[in-house]
Each structure stands twice: as C-alpha cells, then as structure tokens.
C-alpha cells in the first residue's frame, strides 16, 4: 500500500495474555518508530529502529514489552502478560531519513487500539 499499515486496527484481550501488534512501513523507509498513546495523552516514544537494529529502546516501559523488525521492513511489537494499564493506542511511524536528519519527515499509521479487560 501507499501508507504505513498497522494491524489489527482494534484488539481486545484478557489480562495476562500476550499480544502482537504489526506495522508495515512504507516501502524503502529505513527508520521505524513505535509509540503509545494513552487516553487523553500525547504520544509516548517506545522504540526506534534503523534497518533491523534498534539503537534506542529507551521508551519501552517494562521487560514485558519487546519489538523486532525483520528484512528492514515489517515490525512487530509484543506485549507479554498484558495488564490493564497497557490499554492504549499503539502507533507506528516510518521515515525515509534516519533519526535526526534535517529533512526528517515521519509518516504515521492509524494505530492499533488495545483494550485489556
């Protein structure tokens, strides 16, 4: 597709279950970011990928959160043993420029709304 695609659009899970959220960036975009947006809040940075490596994981809130990227393309964010406070919208963005480039421009997906019951 032409834009950043995220799936599923909505996910309802039970407390304690594991979930996987997927992000398909725009083809050729080397930089990929994951964010969390809790209700009534702005975006909270989680992790940054450049290619397949993650030079900045500083935003991951706990060791229950992990992410990987394969083939310099698709990325998966995994949340293990979900808790109710994990309920949020998880947004992904990609960019053709590396992080911090002067001409940096981010393209966002529509996010996954995660609800933990």
């Amino acid at each position, binding site marked *: 597709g032409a834009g950043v695609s995220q799936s599923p659009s909505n996910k309802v899970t039970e407390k304690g279950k594991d979930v996987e959220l997927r992000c398909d960036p725009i083809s050729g975009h080397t*930089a990929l*970011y994951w964010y969390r947006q809790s209700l*009534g*809040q*702005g*975006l909270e*940075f989680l992790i*940054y990928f450049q290619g397949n490596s993650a030079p*900045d994981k500083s935003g991951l809130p706990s060791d229950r959160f992990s992410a990987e990227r394969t083939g310099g393309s698709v990325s998966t964010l995994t949340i293990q043993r979900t808790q109710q406070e994990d309920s949020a*919208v998880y*947004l992904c*963005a990609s*960019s053709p420029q590396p*992080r*911090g480039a002067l001409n*940096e*421009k*981010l393209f*966002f*997906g*529509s*996010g996954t*709304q995660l609800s933990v019951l």
Partner: protein
Amino acid sequence: AQTVTQSQPEMSVQEAETVTLSCTYDTSESNYYLFWYKQPPSRQMILVIRQEAYKQQNATENRFSVNFQKAAKSFSLKISDSQLGDTAMYFCAFMKGIGGSQGNLIFGKGTKLSVKP
C-alpha cells in the same frame, strides 16, 4: 527537562471562522523546534506546521499559522476559515535542536477541536 502544556482540552468553532489553540512550553535549550500535529478520528498523526526557534518569522501553511513568542515560551496555532475537515485533536510538540528527532518529540496533552457547520 522540557514540558509542553496545552491548557484548552476542548474547543469549538463555527465553519469559516478563525480559532486559536494555545500552547506553552518550558525549556532551557536555546536551539529547538516546535510543531503542531493534527490527529483526526482516523488516528493518523499529520504534521500541520513546524517552527524553528532561531527564526523570528512566524511559520505559515495555507490556512494555518503560528504566533511564536520565544521570550514568553508561547506557540499558538491559528486556523483561519475553519473547515469541517479540521475537526481533530491537535497536539503541540517540542524537539531539541541538537540531538533531537521528530521521532522523539515531547507532546502536550492535546486540544480537541470541533468545527460546527
């Protein structure tokens, strides 16, 4: 640490009228950038406008303009000739100039704007 404050949780405006959204920030950095992002119901974050702190001239993008008051640390967004498609959450965001990235912005909590027909 930098903080961004949006004091108006919700605002409404009549179609074709002008509305101003407020944003203040706090930083000890001398070199930085400020942004306004729009998040419609589709949840995609869309960059509206960007301002470099070293530039005295206020940024404009078609119907969108900012009033950047560096000494007061104020960065308001003016939307002229409001359109129904402007209905969205609007987020003000800060980025350090050195070592900063749009991938790691500091966001305010947002203002929900409703444009009424």
